[in-house]
């Protein structure tokens, strides 16, 4: 049913009961569709990279490999994710705050600038003169329009952030909500703050690189570039972390009626992100000789651990809130009945829980360990690093975004999902493949296999090095995992595009898909041994033990590599 007001047309969604601004809905749909299109492009480029780094296949020659690697890094790591994040922030700011969107024309400018910027950079990469990879370290030169496209994309994203901020201001002035921002919107707000720092930092370094590529300035200091670039390059991934954790909270609420165990604790954890998360950018520079140990250690081993504390809080409270909700709904036996009886075949849930597991156990643990200056020496610039960030960005962020997409397609496009049996296994294909990929690459990286190299066998090279059979096996296993995850990604695109184009319309009398608050039992005592969520507590302890063991195993390994006498 559509309700039209003088200012902005709204409709009330039958599935969620949300009042949706139709202008915002059009923007959300456009950003989400563009995101999925670019996921396809990034995934195809990733498949080419995987089939080249698989030693037995070794598909592409060096020039095409670096072109594919550049395209994969930019499109999968940045473009798909930022377009999706724009969709998420517009949806949350309007639908969850019951508010109209601020400055819709500027929001459309965001769409145009980001699309044009992506197109320009993609053309530059495909022309073959800009195979400089995501980091584009100077003095490795790309064509001027490579930088120009990224700058336009970043300006567009910055406009999207300000539209979100303006919507928050309007919602407060028009009193469309009471008290504090809802936690989901709060998480988006935190992501947007990190995005503003990130994009401003990107402008500070990419504009000089653009001018240098045009010959208007003589040089850009390579070390200065590295420092400032990673304020952009790594912080962009911190936006993703904040966004996907926000989605975890959202899905827990929508699918289970779960409430955060403590809103204030969760918000404080987000505040810790604001203060300390972006400082983790330093771990890209832990082997750079020109930077002092003080700068490195303060930013990683001290400050970043406070951000890690925040991640541990989120990792405890999201599954904990699901456990409490499940127990209040009657699944209160033993430690893990609540977990066994979760809807594992529902892709919204399975994507989210796999995102939590892969992000925590693979991306999170490896991220903490590689941020230790000493241990970083083992794995710096090895294939361990792509293993780590595929655990965070692909296994964590992309999988969480997939789960939310399954939820939002019926809401925004008013179409039912097609191929539901395939949708039930898709998160397992993508997440399982990505977990194998990440762990195998981390293993090979620990044993020294370099990243960003087209041929680990160095065939035909004068100064060859044999990494041994174990590394060849690990790379083969990893890339097979990568291919499986590409199949999972293709299945996701097929389901989503097919549902939008051919899905049955959602009936007007459709059942609400938002779970009621899980407090039907009132003050009924739940849990075991004084803990409301004992199963989650055990799982969190398991994660912590894994982290500690992995930390000390790496120090032991470092001691064997560099024995001290």
């Amino acid at each position, binding site marked *: 049913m559509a309700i039209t007001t003088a200012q902005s047309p709204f409709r009330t969604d039958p599935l969620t009961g949300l009042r949706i601004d139709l202008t915002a809905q059009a923007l959300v749909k456009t950003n989400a569709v563009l995101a999925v299109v670019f996921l396809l492009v990034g995934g195809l480029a990733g498949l080419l990279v995987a089939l080249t780094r698989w030693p037995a296949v070794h598909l592409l020659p060096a020039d095409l490999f670096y072109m594919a690697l550049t395209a994969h890094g930019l499109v999968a790591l940045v473009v798909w994710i930022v377009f999706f994040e724009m969709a998420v922030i517009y949806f949350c700011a309007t639908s969850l705050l019951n508010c109209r969107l601020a400055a819709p024309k500027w929001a459309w400018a965001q769409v145009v600038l980001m699309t044009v910027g992506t197109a320009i950079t993609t053309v530059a990469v495909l022309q073959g003169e800009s195979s400089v990879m995501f980091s584009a370290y100077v003095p490795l030169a790309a064509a001027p329009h490579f930088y120009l496209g990224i700058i336009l994309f970043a300006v567009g994203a910055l406009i999207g952030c300000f539209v979100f*901020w303006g919507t*928050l201001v309007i919602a407060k002035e028009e009193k469309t909500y009471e008290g*504090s*921002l809802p936690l989901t919107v709060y998480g988006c*707000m*935190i992501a947007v*703050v*990190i995005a*503003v*720092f990130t994009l*401003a*930092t990107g402008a500070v370094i990419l504009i000089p690189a653009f001018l240098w590529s045009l010959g208007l300035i003589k040089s850009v*200091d390579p*070390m*200065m570039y590295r*420092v*400032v670039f990673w*304020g952009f390059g790594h*912080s962009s991934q911190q936006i993703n972390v904040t966004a996907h954790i926000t989605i975890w909270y959202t899905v827990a609420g929508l699918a289970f009626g779960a409430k955060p165990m403590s809103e*204030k604790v969760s*918000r*404080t954890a987000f*505040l810790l992100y*604001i*203060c*300390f998360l*972006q*400082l983790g*950018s*330093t771990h890209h*520079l832990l082997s750079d000789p*020109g*930077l*002092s140990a003080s*700068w490195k250690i*303060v*930013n990683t081993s001290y*400050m970043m651990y406070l951000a890690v504390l925040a991640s541990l809080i989120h990792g405890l409270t999201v599954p904990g809130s699901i456990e409490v909700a499940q127990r209040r709904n009657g699944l209160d036996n033993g430690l893990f009945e609540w977990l066994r009886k979760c809807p594992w075949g529902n892709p919204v849930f399975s994507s989210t829980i796999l995102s939590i597991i892969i992000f925590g156990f693979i991306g999170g643990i490896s991220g903490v360990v590689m941020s230790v200056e000493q241990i970083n020496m083992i794995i710096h610039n090895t294939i361990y690093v792509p293993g780590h960030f595929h655990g965070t960005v692909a296994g964590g962020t992309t999988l969480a975004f997939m789960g939310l997409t399954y939820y939002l397609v019926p809401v925004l496009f008013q179409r039912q999902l097609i191929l539901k049996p395939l949708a039930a296994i898709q998160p397992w294909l993508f997440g399982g493949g990505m977990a194998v990929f990440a762990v195998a690459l981390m293993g090979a990286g620990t044993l020294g296999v370099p990243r960003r190299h087209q041929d680990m066998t160095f065939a035909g090279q004068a100064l060859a090095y044999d990494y041994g059979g174990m590394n060849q096996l690990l790379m083969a296993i990893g890339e097979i995992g990568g291919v499986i995850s590409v199949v999972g990604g293709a299945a996701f695109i097929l389901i989503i595009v097919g549902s939008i184009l051919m899905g049955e319309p959602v009936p007007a009398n459709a059942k609400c898909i938002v779970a009621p608050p899980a407090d039907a039992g009132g003050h009924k005592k739940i849990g075991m041994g004084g803990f409301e969520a004992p199963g989650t507590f055990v799982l969190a302890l398991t994660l912590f033990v894994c982290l500690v063991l992995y930390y000390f195993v790496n120090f032991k390994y470092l001691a064997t590599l560099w024995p001290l006498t």
Partner: protein
Amino acid sequence: MSNEPVEQQTVLQRVLDDINFIMMLGLVIPTVLYTLWGVMEVASLPIAR
């Protein structure tokens, strides 16, 4: 004038709810601790002869 009791907010809650203050924190802390400090370290390196 309303006679309803005004609920006291803690300092932490006021900080958590002040989005502009959070924006300021999110820009100043990484700019100072990461960017400015890092750039100053690079800038203070002696030039090779």
